[in-house]
């Protein structure tokens, strides 16, 4: 039997990690909710299985999504993951084909060269050695990039790279040592026996004359085995746990399991599937505009994994959703952040690294004492009976020009409409939800729902994308909810309103809550094209920016908000347009002080272009009075 003591560290590591992975998967599976278990079973015997295999190949090995967004970074990840996979695959085949017998234990394949040093003499064998050297060279090229990235992220096209803790550093070092030590060990052995291909053979031939190659090789075989063993043992404590868990995540997602409102097995698997590739850091405006570099999703997931206090990290985020889009693993980052926000602050955060092997229990929200209704002071409001309801929203009340423009448009539309919150309405509830106070938000939702139900309307128009999102997703209404840009688009399509073409050059800023979160990208742009020359920018649709004023971030200071707003305004006014158009009162309010370009809401520019039939034109004094009233200014 071929055996040597140096394989012991590798074997310990390998069998430990296999045991660990099996135990943990069993625990995870048993903790799934019953519907999710059924989904998983159905997925296993259905189409999801094939899809998952394909996705695992494309994403976990080839890293297609990273390649798409950053070629050099993608190559780095691909060479390490795909290269290592090929090395294991072909190594096992090599041991099986050329070894003394078939079906070898894993160490025979990994340390094949040590046990078969004169392998590579015949033509077929040397061809196979060439293949193995090629794969090793492929991995090493990626490894060199990884080392360079650690010291200078710019080389792989990254602005930032993730920061590490001591355990991460040990694991990283052992990972880095694996392939160079294999190269040297194989080269020296090849040198001693005159075998090896273009890489190991050449280095071996070059080193052998002035070194006792066989004796020097032995410590390197030890190093190779030790670094593999260390890496496997530390794997559960570090981000490298994503290597096994990502496979689970892909399979669970394809089976139809989603992140819900509460922490679950799925969110835990998702948290452990993050490879800390750092794409979310580069994509984050808090990072590149405001210089805040410790709250990005990669860090949030990391501190959840380490069970440390996540309160501050979870709150300090614009929730713009840019990271959700770029994440190559497809982790639902914003929902996970919202789970953390809802969670009562955990008291049992630990600092002992070794406890990471055992699972942190789900932090169930602490049972809060029954609190009496906080908003029982709200008066009963009755909206007038009408077909169309207009809900301006808090932010629109602070930008009266949007409100008066909408009144003008609604008047011109000829529809029967009613203004729900004319005298300063009640908040839609989303700001409370964003702060993690869902219960309080529910009270406001119930209050507003009643007003809307009683009116008997079939359409609800809102000027604020924040309200739009919550009305669509969290209210149980049987009315059609429209943002005013969609409403105006409908009016134009029906021919209810006539507009002049304003000869202005404009650019469009897509608000996060409207675009990324609700998928309304095209309607606002079509409306703008109807009245002005819309010029495209570098930040269209999915790539749009957040103005910085987001209610999602409760902690960000006004100064930092202004920095983000200034960055956005500068990006969007590169062509020096006459107007920068947006579709959100909060974006308007945030962007206005940040640039010299005029900021206008979509309703304002439409109202400006509106052709008002002369017979309905009111006298100017009355109109002015109406504006004063709507802005609640009394003289």
């Amino acid at each position, binding site marked *: 039997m071929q055996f040597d003591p140096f394989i012991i560290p590798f074997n310990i590591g390998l069998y430990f990690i296999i045991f660990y992975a099996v135990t943990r998967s069993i625990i995870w599976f048993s903790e799934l909710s019953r519907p999710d278990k059924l989904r998983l079973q159905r997925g296993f015997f259905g189409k999801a299985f094939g899809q998952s295999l394909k996705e695992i190949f494309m994403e976990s090995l080839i890293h297609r999504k990273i390649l798409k967004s950053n070629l050099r970074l993608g190559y780095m990840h691909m060479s390490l993951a795909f290269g290592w996979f090929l090395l294991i695959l072909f190594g096992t085949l090599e041991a099986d084909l050329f070894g003394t017998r078939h079906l070898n234990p894993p160490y025979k394949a990994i340390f094949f060269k040590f046990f078969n040093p004169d392998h590579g003499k015949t033509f077929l064998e040397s061809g196979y050695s060439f293949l193995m050297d090629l794969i090793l060279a492929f991995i090493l090229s990626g490894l060199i990039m990884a080392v360079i990235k650690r010291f200078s992220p710019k080389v792989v096209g990254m602005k930032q790279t993730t920061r590490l803790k001591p355990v991460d550093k040990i694991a990283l070092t052992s990972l880095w040592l694996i392939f160079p030590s294999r190269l040297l060990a194989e080269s020296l052995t090849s040198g001693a026996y005159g075998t090896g291909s273009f890489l190991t053979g050449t280095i071996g031939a070059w080193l052998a004359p002035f070194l006792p190659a066989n004796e020097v090789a032995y410590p390197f075989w030890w190093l190779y085995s030790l670094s593999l063993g260390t890496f496997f043992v530390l794997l559960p404590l570090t981000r490298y746990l994503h290597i096994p868990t990502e496979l689970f995540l892909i399979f669970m997602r394809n089976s139809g399991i989603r992140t819900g409102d509460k922490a679950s097995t799925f969110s835990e698997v998702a948290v452990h599937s993050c490879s800390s590739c750092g794409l979310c850091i580069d994509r984050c405006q808090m990072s590149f505009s405001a210089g805040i570099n410790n709250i990005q999703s990669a860090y949030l997931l990391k501190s959840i994994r380490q069970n440390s206090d996540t309160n501050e990290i979870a709150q300090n985020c614009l929730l713009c959703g840019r990271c959700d889009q770029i994440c190559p693993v497809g982790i639902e980052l914003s929902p996970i952040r919202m789970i953390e926000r809802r969670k009562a602050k955990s008291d049992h955060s630990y600092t002992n690294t070794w406890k990471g092997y055992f699972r942190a229990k789900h932090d169930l929200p602490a049972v809060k004492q029954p609190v009496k209704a906080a908003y029982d002071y709200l008066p009963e409001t009755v909206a007038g009976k009408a077909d169309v309801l207009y809900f301006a929203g*808090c932010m629109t009340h602070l930008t009266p020009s949007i409100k008066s423009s909408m009144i003008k448009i609604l008047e011109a539309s000829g529809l029967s409409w009613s203004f729900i919150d004319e005298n300063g309405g009640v908040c839609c509830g989303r700001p409370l939800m964003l702060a993690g106070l869902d219960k309080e938000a529910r009270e406001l939702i119930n209050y507003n729902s009643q007003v809307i139900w009683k009116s008997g309307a079939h359409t609800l128009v809102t000027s604020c994308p924040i309200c739009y999102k919550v009305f669509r997703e969290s209210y149980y209404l049987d009315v059609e909810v429209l943002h005013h840009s969609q409403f105006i688009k409908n009016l134009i399509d029906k021919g209810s309103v006539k507009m002049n073409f304003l000869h202005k050059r404009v650019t469009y800023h897509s608000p996060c809550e409207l675009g990324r979160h609700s998928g309304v990208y095209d309607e606002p742009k079509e409306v703008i094209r109807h009245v002005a020359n819309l010029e495209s920018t570098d930040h269209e649709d999915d790539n749009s920016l957040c103005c910085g004023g987001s209610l999602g971030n*409760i902690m960000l200071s006004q100064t930092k908000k202004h920095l983000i707003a200034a960055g956005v305004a500068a990006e969007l006014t590169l062509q020096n347009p006459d107007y920068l158009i947006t579709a959100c009162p909060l974006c308007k309010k945030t962007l206005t002080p940040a640039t010299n370009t005029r900021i206008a809401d979509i309703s304002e520019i439409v109202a400006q272009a509106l052709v008002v039939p002369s017979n309905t034109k009111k006298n100017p004094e009355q109109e002015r009075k109406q504006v004063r009233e709507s802005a609640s200014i009394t003289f």
Partner: protein
Amino acid sequence: MDRFGFSISKGRQIDWDTNNREVADFIREREPSFNLCIACGGCAASCTAGNYTDFSLRELNILLHRGENTKPEKNIKKCMLCGKCSLVCPRGVNTRNVLFLARQAFQKLEGYAV
């Protein structure tokens, strides 16, 4: 004795010996802009809750700074965190966070079980 409608008014001095400034300190530590308030009242004027009740961020700010926590504790839950106050604030106080932290402070600090 006949009642003439007069009564003895409550003392209005600020008693620094008994007042508890823990809540204000909790907020100040986490949101330094809490100190920038000049009590202009813009926040109170724009406030929805203030429209229907006697809730006022301006008053809350002053009382918390003084350490008179009874009224703020009673009122804090009326806020809807809508953020209008932070948009009108001329001093750039992050009012939403002040209100959010005040909620947390009353929940966390001893003697305050909301």
